[in-house]
């Protein structure tokens, strides 16, 4: 089918000055080819894990049934200046990119694979989904990963195509980690340089649940990615680690949110990347301490290496806070390689170009090394080694 896209996505949780052009992003395009509405099947499914293919709306039922727990409000309600939360209130569970992705999924009839991990089961191997995209192919699909009480699962998604391929890939992944459960989600995006890609993540963690998200955005020409995780109950945790590379005239648009509702919740979000040539990147990262989230901590770190005079780097690190007993931090380092580092490298006989290559690889490999599948890790490392 052919589809015209006109979506407003990655809306900042609180609006700011319009001249910064960071309040949201638009996905537009006419006659986008979408010819596949299902996810690839995993080569093997670990014991204690079941898979069911349902419609996008039906897959959202799990979150609607749990909405009172997910959107728990223990304290005084309050909204920040420029609050945009009403916009995505219709979602079964809020996602980083927002309601327009849900609407697109529903309008085309995209199917969702629901992975359910039985109570107490620690999956003994990862679920690996290989999105081997053909030239010109268009795929729109979703997954729900539901880890029941005290269970654990790792899901790895491998998005790849030939280096110069064009196409469209849109993925929606929704997560629910129940009490004491742990979900490890790994996404490596090595799509061809003419691909348009979006990756939308949303989810919730209950008491002592944990969600770990590792993403590598290395390919495609236009990429939108968002994540919104509700740390709904006591001691819920989010760890997110992103590595990205933008080159040529690529555009990368990011919106990550950790929503702290439960007591003693903890979030750590790391973003490391490199911009080359005429690449443009917009980063939005929000830590939101809701009233009632006492004892919680949130830390967000951004490290952007800019290696061309023509890059554009926009960053919006936001902390919202309506709770006294919290610890929220944000740090950002944006710029080129430090002179001291270059001098050290040169004193070791490494010229400037080689020093840059080493630093690019070091940044991306620090994320790549955490991929729990050796074959994919090796392929990503090979990809990184051959970037320049």
């Amino acid at each position: 089918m052919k589809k015209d896209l006109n979506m407003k996505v990655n809306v900042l949780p609180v609006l700011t000055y319009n001249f910064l052009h960071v309040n949201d992003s638009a996905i537009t395009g006419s006659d986008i080819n979408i010819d596949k509405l299902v996810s690839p099947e995993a080569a093997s499914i670990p014991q204690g894990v079941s898979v069911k293919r349902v419609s996008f709306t039906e897959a959202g039922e799990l979150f609607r049934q749990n909405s009172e727990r997910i959107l728990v409000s223990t304290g005084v309600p309050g909204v920040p200046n420029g609050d945009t939360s009403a916009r995505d209130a219709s979602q079964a569970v809020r996602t980083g990119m927002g309601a327009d992705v849900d609407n697109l999924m529903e309008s085309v009839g995209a199917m969702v694979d629901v992975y359910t991990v039985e109570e107490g089961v620690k999956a003994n191997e990862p679920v690996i989904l290989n999105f081997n995209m053909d030239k010109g192919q268009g795929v729109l699909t979703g997954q729900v990963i539901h880890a029941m009480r005290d269970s654990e699962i790792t899901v790895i998604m491998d998005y790849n195509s030939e280096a110069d391929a064009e196409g469209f890939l849109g993925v929606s992944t929704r997560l629910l980690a129940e009490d004491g459960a742990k979900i490890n989600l790994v996404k490596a995006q090595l799509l061809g340089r003419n691909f348009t890609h979006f990756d939308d993540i949303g989810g919730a963690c209950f008491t002592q649940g944990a969600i770990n998200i590792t993403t590598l955005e290395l390919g495609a020409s236009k990429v939108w990615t968002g994540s919104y995780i509700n740390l709904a109950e006591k001691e819920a945790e989010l760890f997110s680690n992103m590595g990205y590379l933008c080159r040529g005239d690529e555009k990368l648009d990011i919106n990550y949110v950790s929503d702290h509702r439960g007591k003693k919740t903890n979030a750590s979000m790391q973003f490391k990347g490199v911009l080359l040539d005429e690449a443009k990147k917009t980063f939005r990262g929000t830590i939101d301490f809701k009233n009632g989230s006492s004892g919680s901590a949130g830390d967000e770190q951004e490290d952007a290496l800019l290696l061309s005079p023509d890059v554009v780097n926009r960053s919006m690190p936001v902390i919202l806070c309506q709770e006294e007993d919290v610890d929220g931090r944000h740090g950002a380092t944006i710029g080129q390689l430090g002179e001291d580092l270059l001098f050290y490298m040169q004193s070791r006989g490494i010229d400037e170009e080689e020093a840059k290559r080493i630093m690019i690889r070091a940044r991306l490999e620090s994320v790549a090394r955490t991929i729990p599948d050796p074959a994919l890790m090796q392929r990503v490392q090979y990809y990184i080694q051959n970037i320049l």
Partner: protein
Amino acid sequence: MSDNKQIVADIDHSLYDFKDIENEQDFYRMKEGLTEETVLKVSEEKNDPEWMRNFRLKCLGIYHDLKIPDWGPDIDGLDMDKISSYVRHKSDMKGSWEEVPEDIKNTFEKLGIPQAERESLAGVGAQYDSELVYHNVKDEVAAQGVIYTDLESAMRGPYADMIKSHFMKLVPPTDHKFAALHGAVWSGGSFVYVPKGVKVDIPLQSYFRLNAAGAGQFEHTLIIVDEGADLHFIEGCSAPKYNVANLHAGCVELYVGKNARLRYSTIENWSKNMYNLNTKRAIVEEGGRMEWVSGSFGSHTSYLYPMTILKGDESQMEFTGITFAGKGQNLDTGAKVVHQGQRTSSFISTKSISKDGGIGTYRSSVVINSTAKKAKASVSCDSLMLDSISRADTIPGMDIRTDDADVGHEAKIGRISDEAIFYLMSRGISEEDAKAMIVSGFANPVSKELPLEYAVEMNNLIKLEMSGNM
């Protein structure tokens, strides 16, 4: 250690919250609302030159065309149909304190302004409602060629062309709706010109008092510090509290010449019925330096983000600010900087304290254009939450368009740390005193940037009285 919570007292506004009754005999008050008729009436009252009259009308058109910002605090409580744009005493501005009308003199005496002038200022301007009532500059400063006068008379004097070429050029009326409003009904404010190479050793001060209920104050401050010159300008604002909304939409335009330095300090303590929608902007030439010290304590609602354009190579900017948002207050404050020249540098450091349901928002933008090679920018913002019914939000933005720049940002939100209290208590200090010391220490980076007497005023304003158990 006990879990008992410490009470931090609200700011004591009583010092500023006295009202002087304004009767019809002594005061002229324009009818409420904003129409072409009211704008023309202000223009007539001010005896504007023709270009200014036309400019006001153009601004009114722009005001009607522009929308209220969608990103800031709610300003639905502000109804322009209930605001009088122009209120003045029926006497003229005086150059001698003795000639100022008794009722107005009493107001400024209570605020300590003449005393401050005698003791520590090179010149003083005092605005009461819409008009300057007093302006004076010390002889030795005037002898250096420093001009410090009200804007209206300057517009008709030898500096008329300078004013015409600078007025609302840095903050065009198209900038936002309330800049356009300011352009349409501005009244009062000061003009300062510091000639080439002149260093004014002691500060100049303007004090703005809005005494009338349901009125707006729209003063315009224009400061030009010429090449190699140096000036410290202090601005103070206050008003008594009424149960109707008041509006302050002032505009400050600062031109800092080559290798010049300007420090602009503000202690703002508008009453809690004030909508403070103020615009401040500076442009800095090669090697120049702009320093902002900003304390925001009053107002019901504030939109305040002093902006600096670092136009010249090696120009610098430093912003030090503190915001205290108490009960019923929504203070959205911060700073903006644009790096245009090479090797420019900016340093923004802010502190905000939220309590009793107050909303304190730090909002900023750092823009580094492709021309700003070897620019350095550093932002540090700390927020302290004193209870769990308040809000402290941090919304900083960065837009970087060159690789040859170094940008650092750090933000922290938290409460008074138990470890710090424990440490101080282990040194024999009581828990109450320990908390008081920590909060004072939190505000210290701002108070140390102010002249001593203003630091004392700020500490009085904060009055973080630590007492009792909840």
